[in-house]
């Protein structure tokens, strides 16, 4: 385990060095800023980036993710309870996954203006369905024999849900969250890129118009860092909680 960690650190360092080298050779910061230039830029703009833009984006992300989790779980439970609904909705949901969000996001700006809700909607759209489907598949992976065993104990539908289906789907729930976090960050950033007055995505776009390469990259680096850190934390929580999984 320790060894693997070192290996991945080495790979990251290698890539950064390569990037730095190539950037220095090209020597055109508006096309490819070097990692050092980006870090410098983040430091220069730290107050604006961390105190103004990042909170705005986080707000969208958190609200969007929360809505997606509630709706996604709700839909998963509902489809599991009601096979007719599953038949009707499941294919539709899978199909909606092929819609390029970037293409319809401007529509939301049209509808909701520059308010936070146009951005939240994009985030929800990107994360809701993956959550619903992953958790639903988790419910479906419930072992029939276990269900039957509980039934012979006299279990009600409620018992079956709380004592069997929910614990069975718990790992799927974690997978869903881990998948949804980066998506929600991307969703928020895209929405801000398309139309907003604050946020990391908006900031990145503004820097673009000024041909400030490092300024374009700086917010993106922060976005990635947020996503990675959050996924890391969730993974740790998962490891603490789901100790029973077979090795």
């Amino acid at each position: 385990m320790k060894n693997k960690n070192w290996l991945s650190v080495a790979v990251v360092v290698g890539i950064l060095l390569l990037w730095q080298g190539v950037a220095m050779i090209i020597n055109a910061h508006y096309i490819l800023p070097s990692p050092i230039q980006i870090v410098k830029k983040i430091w220069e703009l730290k107050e604006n980036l961390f105190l103004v833009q990042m909170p705005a984006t986080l707000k969208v992300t958190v609200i969007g993710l929360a809505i997606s989790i509630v709706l996604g779980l709700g839909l998963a439970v509902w489809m599991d309870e009601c096979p007719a609904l599953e038949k009707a909705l499941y294919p539709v949901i899978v199909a909606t996954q092929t819609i390029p969000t970037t293409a319809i996001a401007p529509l939301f700006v049209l509808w909701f203006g520059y308010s936070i809700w146009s951005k939240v909607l994009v985030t929800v759209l990107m994360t809701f369905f993956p959550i619903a489907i992953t958790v639903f598949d988790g419910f479906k992976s419930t072992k029939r024999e276990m269900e039957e065993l509980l039934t012979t104990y006299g279990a009600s539908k409620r018992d079956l849900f709380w004592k069997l289906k929910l614990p069975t789907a718990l790992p799927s729930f974690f997978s869903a969250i881990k998948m949804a976090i980066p998506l929600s960050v991307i969703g928020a950033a895209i929405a801000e890129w398309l139309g907003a007055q604050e946020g990391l995505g908006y900031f990145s776009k503004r820097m673009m118009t000024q041909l400030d390469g490092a300024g374009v990259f700086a917010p993106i680096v922060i976005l990635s860092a947020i996503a990675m850190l959050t996924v890391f934390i969730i993974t740790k929580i998962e490891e603490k909680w789901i100790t029973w999984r077979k090795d």
Partner: protein
Amino acid sequence: MLEFQNVTFQYAEDDYQMMKDLSFQVEEGAFVSIIGASGCGKSTIFRLINGLEQPQSGQIFYDGKPISSLSHFSAYMPQKDLLFPWRTVGQNLALPLEIGRVPKAEQQQKVRAMLKEVGLSDYENRYPKELSGGMRQRAAFARTLLTGSRLLLLDEPFSALDSLTKIALQQWLLQEWEKYRQTVLFVTHDVEEAIFLSDRVLVVYDRPITHLEAYPIPLPHPRNREDLKRPDMQELKEKLIKELGGGSL
């Protein structure tokens, strides 16, 4: 007493009948084994008793009442141990009690007593993956007992175990039964196991099942593995193996 009366059953997915006009009885407090070839319908008999399947015709009675009017009269231990991996051993044992809405304090007390009974007291807070096959089987058996039912339906509980563990658990099961005298229906396809454990062996020969051939086992209790060496038991064993199609290819 458990009684099948002219039970006919067929799985909806199948195009053949599983059993037809099947009648048999199991007396209160008896240890009865059912043996038969793989896929002959032994587990199906259990599914009919515990209500997971309904017969197309005929009826099943327990203590003289049709089972459709009863609940919780049988305790089913399925072929796989089916311990819930996310629950500790103690929490697994508590499952039938939780579902029976037994108060928490009483649950705990019953679980502790049962863990002691099956020799797993030290494993209350361990997860099933930390147990050996034999321990898992004992835990599953303990969970079955905690349903509180007097009719135990044990579906090949030992078939996945190595032979030494299996022998140890057979002896252990007999001791438990000699102490509590529940009615036990025990499915196995191990002829020797059936003879060693039961008062009576029921053999499935035909498909659809129309009758169960009964062989009484006149061995005294408490039992001893040495008893299996008696000439009449050896003879019975050979006879059953031959009739079940063993020994020929």
